[in-house]
């Protein structure tokens, strides 16, 4: 963890501009693309979760 923090700190030292706290401002015109990607990511993750929890085709029934 520590080494990663120092890599991040190096990056920070290279940057002159402070990024805004508001994500909308940070992403600018791409904000809605970001939201669309997030929704897509979540839907795909939930789809796999549903398949694995409720429709698992790989497992045999007990005693099979």
């Amino acid at each position, binding site marked *: *963890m*520590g*080494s*990663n*923090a*120092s*890599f*991040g*700190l*190096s*990056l*920070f030292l*290279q*940057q002159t501009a*402070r*990024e*805004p*706290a*508001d*994500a909308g401002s*940070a*992403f600018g015109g791409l904000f809605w693309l*970001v939201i669309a*990607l*997030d929704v897509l*990511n*979540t839907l*795909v*993750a*939930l789809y*796999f*979760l549903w*398949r*694995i*929890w409720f429709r*698992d*085709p*790989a*497992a*045999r029934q*007990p*005693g*099979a």
Partner: protein
Amino acid sequence: MIDVSQRRYQVIGTAWSAWFVNYIDRTKTAALLPLITVSLAMDTSQTGSVLFAFFIGYAAVQPVAGFLTDLVGAKKTLALSVAAFSIFTWTMALVGNWQELFIRNLLFGISQGFEVTAGSRLAATWFPPATRGRAFAFHQSAYTIAPILAPFIAVPIAQLTGSWRWSFMVIAFFGLPVLAAIDRLVTDRPERDARISEAELAYIFGADSHKRGAVLDPARATSDEQLPPGERVTPYREIFLNRSVALMFVAGFFGLLASWGLTTWLPTYGVQQLKLPLILAGSLSSVVYAGSLVGVIGGGILSDRVFGTKRTPVWLFGGIIMAAAILWATTFQPGAPLIEMYAAFFIAGLAASMSPTGQLFAPYLAELLTPGAVGRSLGVVVLGGMIGSAVAQPLVAALVVQTPNGPQFGGAFLLFAACGVVVSVCVALMIEPRVHRTYLGYLLAGRKEGSWEATPASA
């Protein structure tokens, strides 16, 4: 040569991927933390609270994660952990203040706590004792490789896009192929897998490969005949009133207190006490992880091939060697040769990984108890380790002494060394199932096996 068409390799490879993405998130958050704290105008106390939230969420969920893993199966809990990774990682890109970050890290810690019990149970269930140590060593290599690679993934994305938020957006998608692999490749138990060959089943379970078992929970069965192959009846009192499990809890607390305390504070120690340039100070932690990688792989091979599937001999001197390496490090002052520093911290990382929370814990618990109880027992052990990880940060901060020459970390290093000694003492008192007594007792008695038996009476 490994035949990847064998189902057990597909299962352990998928568990490795899940463990890898779990650690990628933890370490990329740390890598980008300096940028995040400036962006969200966080002070040191708020940053500490945010880091603490992850560990305390992770620790709090361990007993539940262990039970759920044994109850619903490792596949479902593994999927839960990776799906949560996919969702919580992108939420990081949208946080606007430290309170949101705190809640996100708490929830993330809770969800990620399910991976270790699930991956460990899969390794314990899918591999026979003869190769279980090496299989689990491969699984554990993920936690040493991810911290080495994460900065080279997260930081270039942030540099390229000019925002730390894009790193989280991109890495959030890493979880989806892992979820697809879990869906396609993982089954909770070998004998219930539709695609496994009879030859592979015979390899895993030997003469018992024909068994199926109507009762999956070793704590609920009344006879071994009711259980799947490779399992034995293991009542709850044997799991939770077990001397060796309790010692693993204590060893986990002190072992992870030392290793997380060391790796988190090493760059600060390098810059402030040794007056090293930032990049060299940061590389000290990378050297610790490189040592852990060698230790994890080497420990699995040693356990399976040299010690005849005994697990505790690998752990026995790990804590003491770590203590010696850290005591060596207390002698370093500005101008000390870099190669000596690297050697000391490489040895410290290697030895720290040779502990009951660094490696071989799943094979050990499977052999001390039964593979079907690995989730529950490991939940107890990891709980101890994560409490140690959480208290390490404020404890180290309190032990750093401010002097006219700058901060001195000697007190903190002495604490880490003492933790290493406690870990070795705990291991010395743990039962080695293969010789039916403690391994130290076995050696002192001229390699004579003891009378311990894996029955409720011995717990």
